């Protein structure tokens, strides 16, 4: 199972007021609120934690096929920065610069390890079944187009490059629960996929195996 999430800090600044009364209490556990209060940059910590929780939620939702709004039952703990020398290419994707973090998110009995990268105004978080590695992990600025269409184009471009497939043979189709899957020549591929976009950015994480 797989999940990813993007926060464009510039967009978040324009559209969300995290300092609004009761906002943090509604979505963060006591421990998370403490971490935000003690952070050097509380605003960035708000969105780092939120993004980790959202990535974990997407994985949980596809695993359990449930839809619920339960931000405080998504409990992030053990939020650590990964030192540069400890980073593997897997954890970084193509983002060789910036800050990288790991945290554990628990959602009603499920534990997920989430990786998150912060570079300038961009946060990208992802989580994948333990022991698996992403086949493709990408995030890119998309410009002024329709974000969900542009994110799919980005995915198509990378699928085509990776598998040497003709883009016209590839399609992305959602199942009845809204989970996206890759199809090649109209046959569902044994791949798991999570798409995300926010503000100026779109991205995805792709892994082998359907679950």
């Amino acid at each position: 199972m797989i999940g990813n999430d993007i926060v464009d800090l510039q967009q978040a600044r324009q559209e969300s007021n995290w300092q609004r009364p009761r906002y943090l209490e509604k979505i963060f556990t006591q421990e998370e609120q403490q971490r935000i209060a003690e952070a050097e940059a509380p605003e960035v910590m708000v969105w780092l934690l939120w993004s980790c929780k959202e990535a974990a939620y997407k994985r949980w939702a596809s695993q359990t096929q449930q839809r619920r709004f339960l931000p405080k039952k998504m409990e992030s703990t053990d939020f650590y920065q990964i030192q540069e020398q400890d980073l593997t290419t897997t954890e970084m994707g193509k983002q060789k610069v910036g800050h990288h973090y790991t945290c554990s998110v628990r959602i009603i009995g499920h534990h997920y390890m989430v990786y998150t990268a912060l570079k300038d105004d961009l946060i990208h978080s992802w989580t994948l079944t333990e022991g698996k590695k992403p086949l493709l992990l990408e995030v890119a600025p998309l410009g002024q187009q329709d974000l969900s269409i542009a994110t799919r184009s980005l995915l198509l471009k990378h699928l085509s490059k990776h598998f040497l497939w003709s883009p016209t043979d590839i399609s992305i189709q959602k199942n009845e629960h809204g989970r996206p899957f890759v199809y090649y020549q109209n046959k569902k591929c044994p791949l798991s996929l999570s798409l995300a976009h926010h503000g100026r950015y779109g991205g995805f994480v792709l892994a082998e195996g359907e679950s």
Partner: protein
Amino acid sequence: MNKQERIAAIKRIVEPYVQEKAALENLNEDTDFLKDLNINSAHLVDIILDVEDEFDIEIEDEAMEKMLTVGAALAIIEEKVK
């Protein structure tokens, strides 16, 4: 406030968080905030806080879990303002 007035109030509350204003025209009890209106989940928090302020109620975490549609929001409001 009757049901229609409550739906109108919810519509007013969600409006600033909806990119695609056309989607608001057909707003009804089945409208899903995330799927139909493409509201992002960080804004769902704002909507919950706005509903609390508008109707002077407190929505606990348990009730909040279900608040994904206009109908679910209405049910919570009806329950709380009683």
